[in-house]
């Protein structure tokens, strides 16, 4: 047989690439992949970093304990650019990889809403942190929520403000995105049920540079308590400072962003004395305490919800796949829904048929920059 130049070149190419191809194939078989859509760029890039930290911390623990179905677990990260088109693109990139068995979606409801049709089409489990109640009530069986939804946060804020603080004249300030609108409505509904309908319901657009008109509206409303749903800590920081500068000192009970690590740092004394509902509160139980300790040791900073929910999502997803004994999406779904009394960083998980894992909130307060656990309020529905 005559060896032509073409044969030689082809042989050389195969010889060079074969070890890589074999190694790659072996690596693919040896790991179990979880896709993660997370903001690496854009306004929520900071939140995205926290989310990655939480997921990676859980991943290390899962792999140290033997992995899932005897394989090491690998996280495949795609940047969602903090935009709706960004997350749709990121998810479609991940969905095109058939060896990814499940996904972590966004903490932002508006992004989950954007990717939801593609999730339904793909038919694989997606863990989410968005708290708009509708997300798990729109007939999509593949979304599993690792945070309590805003029907709970609204009720807890209202209950705490009305019954514990004794305040009945509420001003609500909320973002006009999906999260803020749903949260504001949930709070408004809860207040109405308690006989204290809000005197002001004020929306604002994200990434505002100035909140003077909002603060003046609060001041003019005569409210004696403030309830808020802010999406971005930057916005919250600017609002908090202007609120105090313009002399508004009424009690403030807010959604989790009020007590986020970043808000506490940015707003400083402007947030002292505020109350917030938080799914993650380090002192609320043994599992949150253990997570807090592990997170501090690894990242040298305090964790918050941004990292706690992804930590729980990876931990619970891994446990569910192990329990299912398979990567079949339907079996994973059944295994997640069957989880009861599972201790997580965010609390005890009891998944309902809608895919909601948590059904209560902690109330925490900002004591001179330290976030202190006050009480936990759990619901049975």
């Amino acid at each position, binding site marked *: 047989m005559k060896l032509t130049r073409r044969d030689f070149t082809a042989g050389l190419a195969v010889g060079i690439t074969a070890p890589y191809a074999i190694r790659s194939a072996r690596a693919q078989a040896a790991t179990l992949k979880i896709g993660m859509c997370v903001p690496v760029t854009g306004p929520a890039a900071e939140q995205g970093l926290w989310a990655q930290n939480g997921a990676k911390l859980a991943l290390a623990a899962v792999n140290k304990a033997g992995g899932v179905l005897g394989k090491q677990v690998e996280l495949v990260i795609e940047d969602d650019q903090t935009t709706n088109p960004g997350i749709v693109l990121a998810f479609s990139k991940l969905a095109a990889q058939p060896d990814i068995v499940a996904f972590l979606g966004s903490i932002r409801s508006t992004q989950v809403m954007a990717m939801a049709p593609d999730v339904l089409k793909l038919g694989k489990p997606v863990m989410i942190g968005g708290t708009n109640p509708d997300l798990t009530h729109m007939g999509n069986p593949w979304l599993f929520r690792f945070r309590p939804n805003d029907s709970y946060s609204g009720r807890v804020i209202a209950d705490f403000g009305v019954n514990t603080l004794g305040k009945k004249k509420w001003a609500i300030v909320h973002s006009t995105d999906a999260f803020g609108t749903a949260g504001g409505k949930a709070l408004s509904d809860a207040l109405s049920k308690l006989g204290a309908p809000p005197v002001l319901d004020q929306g604002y657009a994200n990434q505002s*540079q100035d909140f003077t008109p*909002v603060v003046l509206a609060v001041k003019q409303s005569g409210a004696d308590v403030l309830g808020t749903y802010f999406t971005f800590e930057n916005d919250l920081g600017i609002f908090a400072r202007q609120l105090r500068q313009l002399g508004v000192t009424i009690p403030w009970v807010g959604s989790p962003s009020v007590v986020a690590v970043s808000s506490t740092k940015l707003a400083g004394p402007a947030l002292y004395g505020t109350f917030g509902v938080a799914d993650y509160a380090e002192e609320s139980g043994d599992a949150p305490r253990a997570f807090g300790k592990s997170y501090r040791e690894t990242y040298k900073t305090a964790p918050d919800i941004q990292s706690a929910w992804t930590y729980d999502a990876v931990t619970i997803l891994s446990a569910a796949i192990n329990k299912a004994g398979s990567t079949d999406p339907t079996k994973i779904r059944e295994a997640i829904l069957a989880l009861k009394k599972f201790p997580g960083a965010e609390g005890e998980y009891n998944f309902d048929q809608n895919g909601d894992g948590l059904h209560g909130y902690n109330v925490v307060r900002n004591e001179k920059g330290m976030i202190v656990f006050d009480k936990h309020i759990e619901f049975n529905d």
Partner: protein
Amino acid sequence: MACGKAINNRRPKILLPGISMDLALQLLFTGIGIGAVYALVALGFVLIFRATNVVNFAQGEFSMVAAYLMVVFAVDLGWPYWLSFLLALAGMALLGAIFNLGVYYPLRHRSFLPVIIATIGASILLSNSVLAIYGPQPQVLEGWFETPGIQLGPVYLDSQYLLIIAVTIVLVIFNYWFFEHTMLGKKLQATSQDKEMASLLGISVSTMIMITFIYSAVLGGLAGILVAPVLFVSIQMGSTIALKAFAATIIGGFGDVTGAIIGGLALGIIETFGAAYISVPYKDGFAFLVLVAFLVFRPQGIFGERVAEKA
């Protein structure tokens, strides 16, 4: 100021007329303050446009980079505030020079479009470089003054906004003096009006353009450093301000320094009052509505010449 009465139907809330004078004054002060920030960045847009006939879409990123330089020098390294300020501005001058040599100069003989695209590319490069180096966490930069503000009757005057307004006034005077009463200023003006003629008169056009880029980068940086204590230091801070500053430039008249200042202030006041009287969520909408109205009915802006003619 009546507000938020239509609670149950969740429509955007309207602050009805009848707003008190005290609150109107408060809104006016804030509007002028935020407008002054737009004006400072708009000034950078105008100067580069006059010199090169292109819009520099990285002008907002100049503000962001300067604010991060301040954080590095004043917060991370703990150097004195004034020294950090001077070093940050020096850094911006260097960035302006590099920007000119790397982005504008190689494309100077091409039409305006490749240069504009290059400035957009540079803007993405700058923001992502800072993201890669510094991470996504927003940073806190303390203001110049220990007192956060003063209460003057019913109006609270934020000391940082007072400083921004003062700097804007000083810069308006400085620009007038510089461009009208100094030889360098006149050379810059001559270059922006007719490069060939300026060249024939012995003016080094490339040097003048270099000076323009350096000055614009320093101006943008100054705006960033001044506004950082109010808006915090984040990767997005530049693009958010630049978008409004760009609108201010068109409203004021592209190519006109006075127009940029008036446009910036007008925009700040319009959006603040629009938010208070009509709707907070549509605050940005008012700014861009005014922009569209100008583009349709008076594309040359208040003072300037037609954009189409310039382009």
